[in-house]
């Protein structure tokens, strides 16, 4: 695609997720209290992949959930149309667990704020951590990721496009000029 540059290809993405999985294992001495929750849509796909890696590494079953944060957004008034909403699935008690929230891109931090608020409607986790594939900076809220796949300095106007197999035809992260629309639009990477 003209005007877009590949920053992570499929192989990079796989190795990055393996590293994040190892970091999570390293930091958790009590894996039986761990849980993963992905943010729809691409964060949920990434959470499922991390989940497979973690189960292999730890040889224990780890609860996996996914949440849609549409009903927790703070920009309802600004949006021109109501978004498509997917059902959330958090079928395990979050009380007392360390929940690792997984998303594709960390940008302003508003999605993370909404995700944490949503998570608390399911109970009271002991700890919440954040894992992201890409941290592109430009935070508007005081959030920091615990596990980062790649720090990617960007201009505010640029777009970070994450493609994941399962939703897209390939695994890839690209960065493109904000003035141009990508061929297959990804959701706003907030």
């Amino acid at each position, binding site marked *: 695609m003209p005007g877009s540059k590949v920053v992570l290809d499929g192989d990079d993405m796989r190795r990055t997720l393996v590293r994040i999985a190892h970091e999570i294992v390293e930091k958790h001495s009590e894996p039986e209290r761990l849980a993963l929750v992905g943010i729809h849509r691409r964060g949920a796909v990434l959470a499922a992949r991390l989940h497979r890696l973690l189960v292999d590494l730890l040889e224990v079953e780890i609860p996996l959930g996914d949440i*849609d944060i*549409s*009903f*927790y*957004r703070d920009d*309802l*008034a600004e*949006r*021109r*149309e*109501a*978004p*498509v*909403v*997917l*059902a*959330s*699935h*958090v079928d395990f008690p979050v009380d007392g667990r360390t929940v690792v929230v997984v998303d594709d891109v960390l940008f302003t931090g508003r999605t993370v704020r909404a995700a944490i*608020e*949503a998570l*608390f*409607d*399911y*109970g009271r986790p002991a700890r919440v951590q954040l894992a992201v594939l890409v941290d592109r900076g430009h935070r508007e809220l005081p959030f920091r990721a615990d596990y980062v796949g790649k720090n990617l300095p960007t201009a505010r106007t640029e777009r970070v496009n994450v493609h994941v197999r399962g939703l897209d035809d390939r695994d890839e992260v690209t960065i493109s000029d904000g003035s141009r629309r990508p061929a297959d639009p990804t959701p706003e990477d907030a």
Partner: protein
Amino acid sequence: MQHLLSIADLDRPAITRILDRAVALTEVGEREVKKVPALRGRRVLNLFYEASTRTRASFELAAKALSADVVNFAASGSSVEKGESLKDTVLTLSAHRPDAIVIRTPWAGSAALVAGWTDAAIVNAGDGKHEHPTQALLDLHTLRQRLGDLDGAKIWIVGDVLHSRVARSNILAFRTMGAEVTVAGPPTLIPRGIEAMGCEVRTTLDDLGEADVVYALRMQHERMHQAFVPSLREYAAWYQVNSRRLRPDQVLMHPGPVNRGVELSGEVVDSPQAVITAQVAAGVVVRMAVLYEVLAGRGRGAGPTPEAGAPADVAAISEARA
């Protein structure tokens, strides 16, 4: 979408979007905290000029589950009894800056009128014999959960079609979603020219067996000012949906409240093929989806956005999604 006044304003993608959102919202009721902050700080006014328990309660629960503030305004015991007109009531209540007004009246077309008098989003909760669009949406939701896709499904709407706003909204909604609709009842209770809505008309229940879904309507005595049928017993003898006329694999629906022994016999109401309680349960999630639909994208503190408003807007949104 700025208002929900009629099912005719919704195309198939818009209906599908609302129903998909209702499915997503179902999970909210199963959590420890049974609400989401989507409409926090919004004001929803329930303005009811007619008796209603389930519709008003489900709108109130829906608004509260989305964290909106709800004010109920019933016409009885209010300034309406002192002779205030609908317009003056709406203008007075608009001074409280509601973001949405849910309105039910006995007058056809009143919801559309009110939409012109206020900046709030209007949700029609039944306007006389005209329409009851949220009922149609919750019926579609119930059927989708039970049958899946409605393309080619045969749906019979039976009984007092003349006085039924539910029938009008449902004929439109079922047709939009690809079902084939037949209305059946005594000729005096079938409005002339109803075929123009795209449905077939029968005056007997002889062919009721061809239906996948039987939707029985309530006999609305309160709207009957003349003798449309010789007696309720005579009506029941000819048109009651009972176990003799209904096959066990046909889905039975009714908008409630049921007149047991009139349009439905007791044993079919209590049978597993009746989805009447599922319809009631669907009311809350579908009305949540509707309130979210009309309030998402509006500036805080009401006021129509320049893009919204024209009926073409619905098509534009669905096109943008395609």
